């Protein structure tokens, strides 16, 4: 859950602008002339190299397909969840809550790039004005703290509408290579900032579901960018792959059936180990931007 986000296009534009100035002031050298290896030219999304931008088209298309799949499942599972809420089935609603959220957590950076959708769906208490607080975590509080579904009927209906709106908007959302790169890191930062600390699911303690989903969402992006990354920096590509594997090994013991243990069951040193494994992954992952050039 994060409301401020960097506008990727702005960053890219800045890079193009400055590189462009450089070309003019340096005896007509173009930006692409100064990239001295073939790899560099393939990878760069910098100025004027339209064919370079095209290199990510396949990855972007595949990612959009993934996002749409996740959103479809998200709408479906959210519907099941809110139906349980509206029918007053407390235990069923509690059981459906965390699994439904995982579809959202996998693609969170996209939702964050779509205006108010993220706060409407995923705001925690005190993230927004009390009068505006709605979405999953409002219902979470009712289910686990107030121990009732009563009074949540309208909130449930609005949540489903927000989920459907997200599904509609992702069809045409701007997705570029920069969003993929920063999105993967953002997913892991989400884990570092709120899941590791147990703040995200403060009433249900289902933080590990979100944790796993964020990591899976980041891994999906890594897999889509892997071929490009392997061309530019095979060592980095390999390191990231190894660290994803290591983190998943750390998470494995906490899986129970199709779900995960309550975050309250984790010992302090287990949380710290997860956090440090996550940092070990996020550090090299944050260098995936190398495929975007300069």
């Amino acid at each position, binding site marked *: 859950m994060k409301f401020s986000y960097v506008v990727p296009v702005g*960053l890219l534009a*800045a*890079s193009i602008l*400055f*590189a*462009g*100035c*450089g*070309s003019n*002031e*340096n*005896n007509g*050298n173009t*930006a692409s*002339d*100064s*990239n*001295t*290896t073939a*790899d*560099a030219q393939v*990878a*760069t999304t*910098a100025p004027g190299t339209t064919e370079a931008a095209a290199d990510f088209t396949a990855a972007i298309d595949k990612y959009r397909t993934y996002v749409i799949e996740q959103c479809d499942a998200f709408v479906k599972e959210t519907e099941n969840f809110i139906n349980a809420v509206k029918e007053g089935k407390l235990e069923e609603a509690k059981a459906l809550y965390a699994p439904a959220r995982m579809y959202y957590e996998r693609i969170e950076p996209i939702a964050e790039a779509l205006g108010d959708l993220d706060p409407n769906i995923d705001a925690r208490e005190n993230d927004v004005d009390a009068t505006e607080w709605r979405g999953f975590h409002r219902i979470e509080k009712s289910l686990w703290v107030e121990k009732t579904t009563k009074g949540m009927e309208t909130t449930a209906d609005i949540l489903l509408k927000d989920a459907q709106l997200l599904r509609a908007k992702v069809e045409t959302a701007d997705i570029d290579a*920069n969003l993929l*790169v920063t999105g993967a890191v953002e997913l892991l930062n989400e884990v570092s900032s709120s899941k590791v600390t147990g703040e995200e699911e403060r009433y249900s303690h289902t933080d590990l579901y979100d944790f796993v989903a964020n990591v899976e969402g980041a891994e999906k992006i890594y897999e889509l960018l892997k071929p490009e990354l392997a061309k*530019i*920096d095979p*060592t*980095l590509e390999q*390191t*990231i792959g190894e*660290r994803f594997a290591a983190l998943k090994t750390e998470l494995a013991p906490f899986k129970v059936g199709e779900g995960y243990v309550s975050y309250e069951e984790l010992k302090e040193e287990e949380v710290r180990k997860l956090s*440090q*494994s996550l*940092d*070990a*992954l996020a*550090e*090299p*992952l*944050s*260098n995936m*931007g*190398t495929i*975007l*050039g*300069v």
Partner: protein
Amino acid sequence: MKDKNPSNPGPSSPELNSKENDSSTGFTGKKVSRRDMLRLTGVGGLGLLLGGGGIGSIIAARSAAAPNRAVQASAALADSIPFFGEHQAGILTPAQNFLCFAAFDLTTTNLSDVKKLFQAWTTTAASLTSGQLIGNVNDNPNLPPTDTGEADGLSPSRCTLTFGVGPSFFDGRLGLGSQRPASFQDLPVFTGDNLEPQWCGGDLCVQACADDMQVAFHAIRNLARIARGTAVLRWTQEGFQRSSGADPKGATPRNLLGFKDGTGNPDVTDRKEMDTVVWNNSGDGPSWMNGGTYMAVRRVMLRIEVWDRSNLSDQEATFGRHRQTGAPIGAKDEFDDLDLKATDASGKLIIPENSHSALAHGDGTVKMLRRSYSYSSGMNLKTGQLDAGLLFISFQRDLVKQFVSIQQRLSKIDKLNEYMTHTGSAVFACFPGTRKGGYIGQSLLG
């Protein structure tokens, strides 16, 4: 750095690097704006070829940048202490104002990963101690900068980085069990120890000292960042002394009990004494420690509030010294001999035999080089008292013969024990110095 066009002022040009000097010494006097920087790097393709994460790429980045950065380093920065040399710096180096100490645990069992970490730490340490940015992917808008930046433009501030490995480094995970020096093991439990696991041990250590806290913190932060995936922080402690600004003459510093601490230290300028007290030689143990030394670290919580309620004569009897001058009780000057046999008219010892000075001195034959810092870690939430004390650090040729033998004496009857408790303990084998072109720990890791 792959820019082959000589007419193109690439990112490695002195003009560009001079940005760190713009506000101080003015290396070239020419300002390079942030905008120019982006333009230049945009053209040069910096980072594109060198980018990437992890240790390997940072090494690559450093070696590519080295020649140009060296120009900058030699141009200024008189407060730089060389990283490379026969012995590690930060041992005989007169204590800087601040300390940032970090113990690490390995997360790998692969010796080659450890070697890569030490190699990356070596190039990084060379940058940190000379006030240069780490790596050279610091201007690519698409990548996190290789240097975290908070020391950008700051002088080296006499930064030293001292590296060591703990006994657990030789526990078999890395296959180095046979290399452990015989007497190098965790310290025995001393009387009155109140050790807490979170302040004990560590596979690796880095002692960062500097005359600026931000410089020291920056060093530990970046070394920990580079270690990710190979080692994780186990514990850290910041420390301070009176600053050189507050005490330009550099008198013996006072600890938080108000007494001068370090008066009886051996003379670090006496080479023979240092060879006797501090440095390992070929007869001492495994050859990889030749020129190295052993570090003992003890986190000592001081019962400040209790101390503050004891009267001056009791305080002085506890240390065996006068508070104001630091002189032995009954003497005038700080450096007067500690006469442990002197008696008063009634035949009573003037310096109590259970005083800290008397016990630490013993018969004067066993010495160690102390290099401690005070610490203050806010408030103890249980007691509402200040959580403050001493991060005791000493260097010696042999832990058992020197530190352990002195501490066993002290722990039993030292009058000072009433006012303190040892909460942390660690020992590290500090490698010999690193030669240019070599890396930290090379004598052990090959």
